[in-house]
């Protein structure tokens, strides 16, 4: 049971969150401008490092907001929780 630091609510058990995979995967601004291979990469290919990984979580059983975390996938050490994107709300 990971301990995850929601930037708004503080440290909570993993069970309150849902995982969102790799952070900072931008949707192509004009999907029609990319070819099938690039579009396929956007849909299906994500980084999968053993080590530090920038990833997203959503506090689904709490404030329901998304944020980014850097976690070491080999040790589960977590750092640098920041709101996803501009995090306007």
């Amino acid at each position, binding site marked *: 049971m990971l301990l995850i630091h929601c930037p708004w609510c503080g440290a909570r058990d993993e069970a309150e969150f849902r995982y969102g995979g790799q952070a900072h995967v931008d949707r192509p601004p004009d999907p029609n401008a990319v070819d099938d291979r690039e579009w396929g990469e956007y849909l299906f*290919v994500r980084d999968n490092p053993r080590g530090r990984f920038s990833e997203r979580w959503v506090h689904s059983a709490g404030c329901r907001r998304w944020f980014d975390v850097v*976690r070491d996938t080999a040790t589960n050490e977590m750092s640098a929780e920041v709101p996803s994107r501009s995090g306007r709300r």
Partner: protein
Amino acid sequence: MATPRRTPPEPPARLWRNPEPKSRYDVVIVGAGGHGLATAYYLARDHGIRDIAVLERGWLAGGGTVRNTMIIRSDYLLDESTALYDHALGLWEQLPDELEYDFSFSQCGVLNLAHTEQEVRDSRRRAFANQLNGVDTEWLGPEEVAEFCPVLDTSGESRYPVLGATLQRRAGTVEHDHVAWALARKCDEMGVDLVQNCEVTGFRTEGDRVTGVRTGRGPISAGRVGLAAAGRTSPLTDTLGVRLPLQSHPLQALASELLEPVHPCAVMSNHVHVYCSQAHRGELVLGGGIDSYNGYAQRGSVHLVERQLAAAVELFPMFARAHVLRTWAGTVDVTPDASPIIGPTPYGNLFVNCGWGAGGFKATPGAGRVFAHTIATGEPHPLNAPYGLERFTTGALIDEHGATGVAN
């Protein structure tokens, strides 16, 4: 309701040499799990290639091969899946003789439970498809389920009553350590070098070809390289700048103490996310869903284990006083469509077999055979032709999510 005691196999007195790696091989297989060993075996048996090294970072078959729940079945939904897994099942049936090793393939049957009306529809769809594909899947109503597996609670009183199940009678369980040892022994006999404690850290390349691998024990040249590294595939291909649609996750399973035989078959339930069988020695072996987050730590989160056991006790009330003796977590590599990737890469003589998620063990001989074909001929075998990387571009996915949520 006791079933007869079964004896696990006696391991043989000779298994393998522990050779020092040579400086060059025709084929280097990365990963000495079941898939890597089976690949080497079929390369040697079917393609006459004997100059093979299987390189293993830890101890042979120390990953998913011996951390799975031992279930062998082929009752998948889609034609492509059924063909591959049923090919494997056919090979499983031959392997004990072929490898001269009784690894206790017990065709005790696998039940796949349906708890909702939609699951009934999905299950029957799968059973109908299996029958037309020549796979022996049947649909059982609740009474037939109760008769086949009396330890299941089929009373209809539970939160999610058993509305029926598919049954594949040819499916069953094997003793997984012995499978690995049987393959390893035969590989070794045929001259394959099984090299343990030899971690591959990267590749040597020339243009669009790999010329060998870098290992903790020095560089090794290779004519062709096959990756069968499961959860560790991405860190390897990352060194070549090849990004694969894989995510590595922890997958947990657990076993009880030894108990007198009581569970006649293997049972899976996608809805409550648990699968359970009893090993030959007597321990109950249970698996469940994968952890949500990426991870290589071989540790999972305990609330998943708690959910899994709550589901197990719901399905099998009489197991309430059994004890969890050990839990473990492996690293599984999952693809977007819950089907594996078996085929070539942008590097002409580098091939991958990965993305099996939680389902790789049962495919071991089938995967090894088609991967060996792919490595030996440079072209996919008809059975793995649909499993190439291009499907993520064209959209021709082999999406097994609908039918096998647990994808065990």
